[in-house]
């Protein structure tokens, strides 16, 4: 059986060719339809300039709106994932905790977040909650009081001072949303560790904390990692939602550019390609990770 599974069929059948041709002709028809029926005036020449432009004052190529948005999307997804993993780990441990109170907190969080549309959650969080937190933490004043050097580091890692507090609330919002899914990943990972592992470590006289850190977690992490990496890809895709709260990420920048230039199709297609490049390269890495994990399974 195993032999059969591993050997892949590489012969191309007639049906495959027909199907491919059918798909191709559909695509050609679509392009034909758009260009004739819709009488859309294509103007691709402006797009590269909106990705990178040559700056005369500095004398080198610098990213323009679309690429700036692209990098913001990466930064946003990166930090949101890290925060979401923290939230998810704590809540995931809570979900499997022996204390009823902790289990209830974990369950409430997951059910609340998963049963609200992300768009609604983002609006609520951005306008009501994050505003209170940001004002209480005095984030804005703090960022402005930094030296220029620190400001540029901050701009590189997060966002420019003007957009910093907005960016931070976007990270929180996304992290809260993704955290619920990561909680479930962590919970299932912890629960997948056999009960006898708990019992054996208990019999060895380890405390709950020691059992968790030395016995259960190392085994769980191995199973958690691949779906967790998949969740990172989801975060990248979900980050497009925060364009509604005016975070300067890829979708928002694209929408702004469309409003100014009316190059609707060109810009949407470019955005699609950029997202695809980003998520597909992450998928490849995840696939490699999964294979590596499987090969090194003890």
């Amino acid at each position: 059986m195993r032999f059969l599974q591993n050997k892949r069929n590489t012969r191309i059948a007639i049906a495959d060719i027909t199907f491919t041709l059918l798909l191709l002709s559909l695509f050609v028809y679509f392009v034909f339809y758009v260009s004739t029926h819709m009488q859309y005036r294509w103007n691709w020449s402006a797009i590269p300039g909106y990705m990178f432009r040559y700056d005369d004052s500095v004398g080198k190529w610098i990213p323009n709106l679309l690429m700036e948005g692209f990098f913001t999307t990466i930064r946003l997804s990166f930090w949101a994932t890290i925060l979401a993993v923290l939230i998810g780990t704590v809540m995931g441990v809570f979900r499997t905790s022996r204390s009823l109170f902790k289990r209830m907190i974990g369950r409430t969080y997951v059910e609340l977040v998963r049963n609200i549309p992300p768009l609604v959650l983002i609006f609520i969080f951005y306008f009501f909650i994050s505003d209170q937190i940001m004002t209480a933490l005095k984030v804005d004043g703090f960022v402005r009081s930094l030296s220029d050097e620190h400001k540029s580091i901050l701009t590189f890692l997060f966002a420019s001072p003007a957009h910093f507090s907005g960016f931070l609330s976007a990270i929180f919002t996304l992290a809260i949303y993704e955290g619920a899914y990561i909680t479930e990943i962590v919970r299932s990972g912890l629960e997948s560790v056999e009960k006898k592992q708990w019992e054996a470590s208990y019999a060895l006289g380890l405390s709950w904390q020691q059992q968790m850190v030395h016995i259960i977690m190392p085994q769980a992490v191995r199973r958690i990692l691949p779906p967790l990496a998949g969740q990172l890809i989801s975060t990248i895709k979900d980050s497009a939602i925060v364009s509604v709260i005016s975070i300067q990420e890829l979708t928002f920048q694209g929408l702004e550019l469309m409003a100014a230039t009316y190059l609707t199709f060109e810009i949407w297609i470019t955005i699609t390609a950029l997202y695809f490049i980003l998520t597909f390269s992450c998928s490849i890495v995840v696939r490699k990770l999964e294979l590596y994990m499987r090969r090194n399974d003890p």
Partner: protein
Amino acid sequence: MRWFKFGSLFLSVIMVVTVLSSSGMAGSARQELVEDSLLEQILKRGVIRVGMSTFVPWAMRDKEGNLIGFEVDVANRLAKDMGVNIEFIPTKWSGIIPALLTGKFDVVIGGMGIRPDRNLKVNFTIPYDYSGQSIMAHKELAKGFNKLSDFNAPEVTIAARIGTTAATAAQKYMPKAQLKLFDDESQAVQELLNGRAHAMVAQAPLPAFQVIKNPDKLFLPLEDSFTHEPNGFAIRKSDLDTLNYFDNWIRFVEAEGWLKERKEYWFGTRDWEDQIN
């Protein structure tokens, strides 16, 4: 019973403390008002944060990603005259008033029409600009339409940007027509170009510009705009100092003739055209 007694005692203590402290604070209330005003905060921060949204030619991005446009000129001049730096916070138009109210920026300088219903939520300065809504229509679908009443029919679809005075005007003047609302003007224009809407209402001069761009598909059923509305800066309520400053700044630049000159550049000419495309 004991808890109840304790609770009422606690409450009365709080009340006494509140009354005492508030009577003590009355003297410094004026001082606090001045310090709390947006104007002081902007000066202290050294930065004015302006909320805006892309509307050609009020505010848009040029090829280098910089903001340009009539509103951008106004905001830049305001910041220069106040002696502070400027930060633009591009915001979705549909959420711009909530964002202002929750303090995401200090002021909206974005061609916002002064409307009584909006004024219940925010304060407006005196008008620094007047604009009007104008309508453009699809050449085939709306053939022969030349007055607003032609569009006021149930089978007519009109596109507009959500939350704008254009949408309100469309509803008011063509209540029978179906209104299709979009987040951005470009989406509404695209809908019209694709022939899924008969007409689009937008702030002048956008329809005229679009007709120049697409003469084979669009036309202007009416020569002029059909509404006339004042535009002002919007700020949060109960801040008279700031309102007074902005009002008088507008009077000042208007008397100088600067506002008129800028308006002529952005709306009367198309010299800026090559900066964007």
